[in-house]
């Protein structure tokens, strides 16, 4: 391929440039990207500090015989919340990159759009993992006790299902070209988390609210993540995660296409 363009001895520049493997996807860029995100104090506040803080605030809400179980319940919900914020922040970073012209700069490199999106999703998932691990560490250190299999299954479920919010973050990131996208998206996440039963158990809500809550993108994630502890895994929960991931994923794709076509 690269021999199609003849060079002469006088031509000292770019003798043979081949295309990068995997459209430019690489671990060096990914590591730099993750390190950059984790250096952002605000991001760390939202994915590490706040969920733990909420855990300490809410765990006291239940006493009596069920206290231990309520603590675990609250901890898992907060891990899910942290993962939600982390993955959303990772995806929504494209808004900042668009507003600063970094995306445009990247278009002057061999990086393929699909490779860029893949690195964004992976960064988002690593942030989500950080959130789950830190919440569980804080929980374990402050006396939450669960069977090892429950810890692992809940953690994995919370983390894997937060893919919904990586897609949501990307969608919002392509929708809002703003350097401060998380200022809009942060409160939205709190409302979604509320509606998804992460802050208040759904059975404590009035029936109308409970019905509406099932349409929150956080609903399925919460139910699936708590299932190893309390059971209640349902088709509706799985459909929620799969459906919202598809909706946000397709939405992000459409906006992304519009973004690159609008040149």
């Amino acid at each position, binding site marked *: 391929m690269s021999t199609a363009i003849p060079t002469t001895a006088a031509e*000292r*520049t770019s003798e043979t*440039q081949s295309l990068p493997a995997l459209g430019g996807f690489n671990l060096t860029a990914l590591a730099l990207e993750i390190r*950059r995100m984790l250096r952002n104090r605000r991001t760390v506040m939202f994915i590490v500090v706040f969920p733990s803080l909420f855990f300490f605030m809410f765990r006291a809400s239940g006493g009596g015989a069920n206290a231990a179980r309520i603590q675990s319940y609250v901890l898992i919900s907060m891990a899910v919340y942290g993962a939600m914020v982390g993955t959303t922040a990772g995806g929504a970073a494209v808004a900042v990159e668009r507003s*600063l*012209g*970094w995306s*445009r*700069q990247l278009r002057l490199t061999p990086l393929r759009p699909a490779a860029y999106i893949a690195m964004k999703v992976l960064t988002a998932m690593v942030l989500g993992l950080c959130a789950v691990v830190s919440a569980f560490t804080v929980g374990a250190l402050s006396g939450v006790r669960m069977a090892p299999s429950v810890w692992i299954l809940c953690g994995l479920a919370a983390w894997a299902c937060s893919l919904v919010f990586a897609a949501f973050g990307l969608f919002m990131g392509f929708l809002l070209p703003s350097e401060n996208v998380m200022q809009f998206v942060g409160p939205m996440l709190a409302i979604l988390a509320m509606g998804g039963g992460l802050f208040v158990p759904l059975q404590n809500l009035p029936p109308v609210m409970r019905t509406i809550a099932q349409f929150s993108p956080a609903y399925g994630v919460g139910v699936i993540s708590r299932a190893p502890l309390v059971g209640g895994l349902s088709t509706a929960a799985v459909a929620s995660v799969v459906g919202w991931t598809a909706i946000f994923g397709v939405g992000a794709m459409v906006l992304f296409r519009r973004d690159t076509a609008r*040149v």
Partner: protein
Amino acid sequence: MVGMLAIDLRHLTKRYGNVTAVNDLSLAIRSGEIVAFLGPNGAGKTTTIDMILGLARPNEGSVEVYGLAPVDAIARGYVSAVMQNGGLLKDFTVYETVRYTASLYANPQPVSEVLERAGISHIADRRVGKCSGGEQQRLRFAMSLLSNPRLLLLDEPTAGMDVEARREFWSAIREDAGRGRTVMFATHYLEEADAYADRIVLVRQGSIVADGTTAAVKSMASGRTVRATVRNADRDALAALGGVTSVELRGDTVLITCTDSDAVARHLLTKTAASDLEITANSLEAAFMALTGDAEVPA
């Protein structure tokens, strides 16, 4: 590479709504040329560069870069660019920015080497957000060197820099130019075009109005205009003075474009009844007027 065109633009037109930013522009740049793309703001320079880079799609016409479509030329690292502003993440350091960009190429130049060549090794660990405009521009230059491109496009690379930063930036570019790289830079500073280009392409309102060697284009802009009120001026006599390139009569006002304004002024004040005499150095705008013969543009 002999005879191969670095840039081949044919009948490019780009419209944004009702505004025609680039109008039927054709331009061929040979490998190894250093070309200044000179024109006032809004002349279509950035739009043209965006089309060469594949960041904008022309409504009509074609773009080839070393015989390839822009996106393929970029993917192979044949072309890179220093854009006017933006394009940097504030929370990466200088080193991280270059390292990240380098990781996207198959065979990048060593990071330390491009930092050195751009003259920013000493600020490698500084956050981009803390760098001055000139430092950020040299960072963009360092990034553009990673692919060791055959063609380097610079869009108003020194806009907003102070004199010292501008001098340092150009000296970095100049040190690098001996490598047979084709360079095209957009600017609205005539001095920059003069100092660094072998060829100047003048654009105005989306079209090329002049294309020639630096000396040829510069001579058109380097003269002066003598303006005076003279009743019944003798046009032929004025035109016959040494160094006069054009004489224009507007009622009682004469406008004389010339290279020796002292001689013309002396003639007007001693041999005619001229009054209200003014001498102005020809601006770039005046050069455009001379080149386009468009008297509609306000002086």
